[in-house]
C-alpha cells in the first residue's frame, strides 16, 4: 500500500510544485489584533462561546468516563501546540503554519477541540502578539470550530464508506486545515467588502492571498497526523476503540 502511495505521491508533488511555483503574495493565518471592526469581533465571540461551553462539558464527560484518556487529551493539545508554533515555508515563497487540531477532532470530537484550540490561540495572542484578544473569537471560530468540525465530519464519513484508515485520517487533517483558512478569508471579506463588487470581490482577494500558500502546509499536516495516528493504532488500540475512533 505504501509503495503505491510512493508512486502516486511523486507525480502529485510534481504537479503541486509546478502549479505553485508562480510567485504570489503571502499570508499568515490568524487575524491580527484590532483588525476586525468591533461589531464583527463581537459577533464572532457570540458565535464561538456556545462551542466553548460544549467543549467544557465534552472534556468533563470524556475524562470522567475514562480517566486514562487524560494523557491522550494532553497529546491532542500538545500536537496542536507544536504544529501551530511551526511557521513553515511554502512554495509560494512565504510562510504560514499548520493548526494541528485535526488529530484531536478525530480522537475526541469537535467540541473538545473548540476548547483546546482556543487555549493555543490565547497563548499566542498573549505571549507572541500573534493573532489577538479582540480577534480571538473569530480566530477560534475558524481554527477551533470550523476546522475540527470539517476534520471530524470527513473522518467519520470516509470511515463509514470503508475508506482506509490512513486516507480518512490524511484527508480529515488536511481539509480541516484548509477549511480554517477559507473561513478566515470569509471573515475578512465579510468585515471588509470591496467598494466595487462587495463581499465576493474581497473574498476573491483574501482567498487568492493565502489559499495557495496553505495547500502544501495542509498536506504536511495530513502526513504528520497520519504518522501520530499510526503510532496510536500500534500502541493505543484499546483507547481508540473506547473513543469509537476504531470499530
Amino acid at each position, binding site marked *: 500500500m505504501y509503495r503505491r502511495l510512493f508512486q502516486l505521491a511523486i507525480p502529485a508533488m510534481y504537479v503541486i510544485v509546478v502549479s505553485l511555483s508562480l510567485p504570489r503574495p*503571502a499570508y499568515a493565518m490568524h487575524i491580527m489584533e484590532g483588525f476586525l471592526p468591533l461589531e464583527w469581533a463581537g459577533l464572532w465571540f457570540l458565535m464561538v462561546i456556545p462551542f466553548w461551553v460544549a467543549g467544557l462539558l465534552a472534556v468533563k464527560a470524556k475524562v470522567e468516563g475514562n480517566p486514562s484518556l487524560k494523557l491522550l487529551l494532553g497529546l491532542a493539545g500538545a500536537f496542536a501546540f507544536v504544529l501551530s508554533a511551526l511557521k513553515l515555508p511554502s512554495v509560494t515563497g512565504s510562510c504560514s503554519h499548520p493548526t494541528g487540531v485535526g488529530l484531536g477532532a478525530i480522537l475526541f470530537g469537535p467540541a473538545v477541540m473548540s476548547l483546546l484550540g482556543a487555549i493555543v490561540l490565547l497563548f499566542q495572542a498573549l505571549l507572541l502578539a500573534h493573532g489577538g484578544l479582540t480577534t480571538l473569537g473569530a480566530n477560534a471560530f475558524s481554527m477551533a470550530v470550523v476546522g475540527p468540525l470539517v476534520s471530524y465530519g470527513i473522518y467519520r464519513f470516509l470511515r463509514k464508506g470503508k475508506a482506509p484508515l490512513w486516507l480518512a485520517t490524511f484527508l480529515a487533517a488536511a481539509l480541516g486545515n484548509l477549511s480554517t483558512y477559507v473561513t478566515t478569508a470569509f471573515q475578512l471579506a465579510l468585515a471588509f467588502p470591496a467598494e466595487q463588487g462587495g463581499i465576493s470581490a474581497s473574498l476573491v482577494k483574501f482567498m487568492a492571498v493565502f489559499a495557495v500558500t496553505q495547500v502544501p502546509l495542509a498536506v504536511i499536516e495530513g502526513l504528520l497526523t497520519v504518522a501520530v495516528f499510526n503510532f496510536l493504532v500500534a500502541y493505543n488500540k484499546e483507547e481508540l476503540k473506547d473513543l469509537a475512533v476504531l470499530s
Partner: protein
Amino acid sequence: MSTTYKNLILLLFALALILTPFIVQQGADFAGADEKAQEIIGEVRPDYEPWFSSLWEPPSGEVESLLFAVQAALGGVFLGYYFGYQKGKVAG
C-alpha cells in the same frame, strides 16, 4: 511493514515538502506576512484604523523566536513523553 518504517516514509515526505520551497523559490523572502492581509484591508478600506493593539509584544524578533521555540519545545516534550510511555507500557 512496521509502524516505525511507515512513519519514517511519512516524515520524509513532509520533509521534502518543507524543503521544496527553498529550491523552487530561491530568493523569496519567506516572510510571515500577516502584513499581506493588512495591505488588502488598506486597499479596501483605506480609512480603517486598528482599534486595539496587543497588550504585550515580544521586544525583538529574537525574543519572539525564543517564545515560538518554547511553545514547540513544550509540545514536543509532551509528545516524546507520551510516545515513550505508551511504547514502554506495551513492551512491558
